[in-house]
């Protein structure tokens, strides 16, 4: 039996999945605490013995691959020129690389901006600005200001190619580690985020893993390949696209409702599905990840309550507003708590449904009607997810929630809101065994096994 061990160094837990590569099946799972703050080997050792307790003596794994969202994840700051153009492209690149965006800046950085960047102390800064042959003043000015700043993190330059070397030189002269890659927007309106995404991942592997102390356990695994959200996105890509000899699921959406944030990933072109609709704005990346920093089951539960209204949550929970508020206060005070009482479980269910609904509505594109002298014209901004065939839920609350199908159903298009271009009739599936990250990690080395594993374990839930 050829086997692989996949590791997720999370912020709370170290999670393991052992996989049989010949059959593309899961052998077992193990879990330990996250001990990055002290010594990462502690949590991993505990997780390994947990796994051993479940499946017996551990085999000699062919691959031992890891991803990490521990120690705050991959904190990034992006800088571009125009907010809707290169600044947006830089943001897309960072999100697609699995980063946790802590700051996004556009135009010339002010003293206040620099102070903010210094306070944020990001793991990586992505510096863009100008199309190739376009504006070079602003990226050079920003490079100079970042060079003079007290930040010491690596800087990835992905802006106007005519200015990139000079910008890199300014930063290097100040002792900052610099990587130059292709422009995130080489021509006006052309998105080119893959090279920047690869550069971010490379810097993550070469520097960040060490800086966060994750490589202290390097005897126990082969490599930390990427941040966990990037592994989930890679898993989603493989499941969507499939392989030459094995079809995938087609365009899909993955929703991950966490304690602090809700991530939505889409693998879809997002082109208009209705006739005569004119796309507007930047082209959308085929692989798109959005992070809703204000929607989470614990730390950000009050934000969800504010967005949908306490009375809505109370009604869905079957309590009065005071009763619901009491539960909200309890879970906000104890962010690691799991629901125990029936009312708490119903409240969590209501929170999850609300988070899914809002997060997918923000991720999906919208269509607006513009009145012209020749009649009304429909203009689409963002991705049309109408023809998405599969919606997959992942993460604790969806995997262990009481009604995952009801939560995921909130991702669907609402006939009362035709302007929101959400999936119309997808199959709803659940990553109940938390395997998407494992598929993403395996995709690079054992794609067939990864695809088999993913297809077999994204279980359909409820009716569609």
């Amino acid at each position, binding site marked *: 039996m050829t086997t692989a061990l996949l590791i997720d160094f999370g912020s709370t837990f170290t999670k393991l999945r052992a996989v049989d590569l010949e059959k593309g099946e899961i052998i077992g799972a193990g879990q330990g605490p996250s001990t990055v703050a002290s010594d990462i080997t502690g949590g991993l050792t505990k997780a390994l013995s947990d796994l051993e307790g479940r499946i017996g003596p551990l085999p000699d794994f062919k691959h031992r691959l890891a991803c990490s969202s521990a120690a705050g994840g991959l904190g990034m700051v992006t800088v571009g020129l125009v907010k809707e*153009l290169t600044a947006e492209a830089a943001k897309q690149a960072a999100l697609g690389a699995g980063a946790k965006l802590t700051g996004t800046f556009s135009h010339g950085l002010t003293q206040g901006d620099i102070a903010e960047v210094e306070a944020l102390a990001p793991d990586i800064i992505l510096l863009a600005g100008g199309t190739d*042959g376009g504006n070079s003043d602003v990226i050079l000015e920003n490079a100079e200001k970042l060079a003079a700043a007290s930040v010491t993190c690596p800087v990835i330059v992905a802006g106007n190619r005519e200015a990139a070397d000079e910008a890199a030189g300014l930063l290097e002269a100040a002792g900052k580690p610099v990587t130059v890659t292709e422009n995130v927007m080489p*021509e006006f309106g052309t998105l080119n985020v893959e090279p920047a995404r690869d550069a971010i991942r490379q810097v993550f592997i070469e520097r960040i893993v060490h800086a966060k102390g994750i490589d202290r356990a390097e005897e126990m695994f082969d490599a930390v390949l990427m941040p966990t959200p990037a592994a989930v996105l890679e898993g989603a890509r493989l499941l969507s696209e499939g392989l030459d000899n094995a079809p995938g699921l087609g365009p899909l959406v993955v929703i991950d409702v966490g304690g602090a944030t809700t991530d939505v990933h889409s693998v879809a072109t997002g082109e208009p599905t209705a006739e005569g609709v*004119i796309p507007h704005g930047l082209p959308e990346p085929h692989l798109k990840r959005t992070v809703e920093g204000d929607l989470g089951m614990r730390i950000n539960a009050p934000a969800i309550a504010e967005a949908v209204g306490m009375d809505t949550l109370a009604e869905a929970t079957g309590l009065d507003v005071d009763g619901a508020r009491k539960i909200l206060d309890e879970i906000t005070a104890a962010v690691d708590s799991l629901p125990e009482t029936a009312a708490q479980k119903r409240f969590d269910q209501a929170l999850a449904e609300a988070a899914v609904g809002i997060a997918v509505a923000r991720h999906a594109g919208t269509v607006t009607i*513009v009145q012209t002298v020749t009649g009304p014209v429909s203009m689409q901004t963002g991705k049309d997810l109408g023809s998405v065939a599969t919606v997959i839920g992942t993460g604790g609350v969806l995997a262990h929630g009481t009604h995952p199908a009801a939560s995921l159903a909130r991702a669907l298009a609402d006939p009362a809101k035709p302007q929101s271009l959400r999936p119309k009739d997808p199959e709803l599936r659940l990553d109940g065994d938390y395997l998407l990250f494992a598929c993403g990690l395996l995709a690079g080395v054992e794609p067939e096994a990864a695809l088999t594993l993913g297809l077999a374990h994204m279980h359909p839930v409820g009716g569609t």
Partner: protein
Amino acid sequence: MNADENPKRGDITLVTGVIGADTHIVGNRILSLGLEEAGFKVVSLGALTPADEFVKAAVETAADGIMVSSLYGQGELDCRGFRDLCIEAGLEGILLYIGGNLVVGKQDWDSVEKRYKDMGFDRAFPNGTRVEEVVETLDKDFAAGKKAGT
């Protein structure tokens, strides 16, 4: 004329598009292709382009000129404050052209041209202007030292 005779055109970036809720793309498309053929770098925004998007595209691409088309008679409303938007975005000296059906009905061209020049456009062209004439005017204006503020 072709691009070889005017090597400097290759250093000039022009943003083109149809302003406002105007879907008439054909003339603008012909203009964009003609300008490209003449050797200019063209950033084509197409139909239904709000004024601020012309300006944003010009900032990012360090454009030297913006060529606004308006065919549906609402140009006066759509273009109000266009020069101010450019100045606001740091594009003080950028060359601004407008062309098309700039007003509703038959009106004296001189008065139409004056209205658009008062709005800050360097040149205004009536419907039916040939691409060659636009190219010649561009050459003349850029030779006279008219240069973008970026």
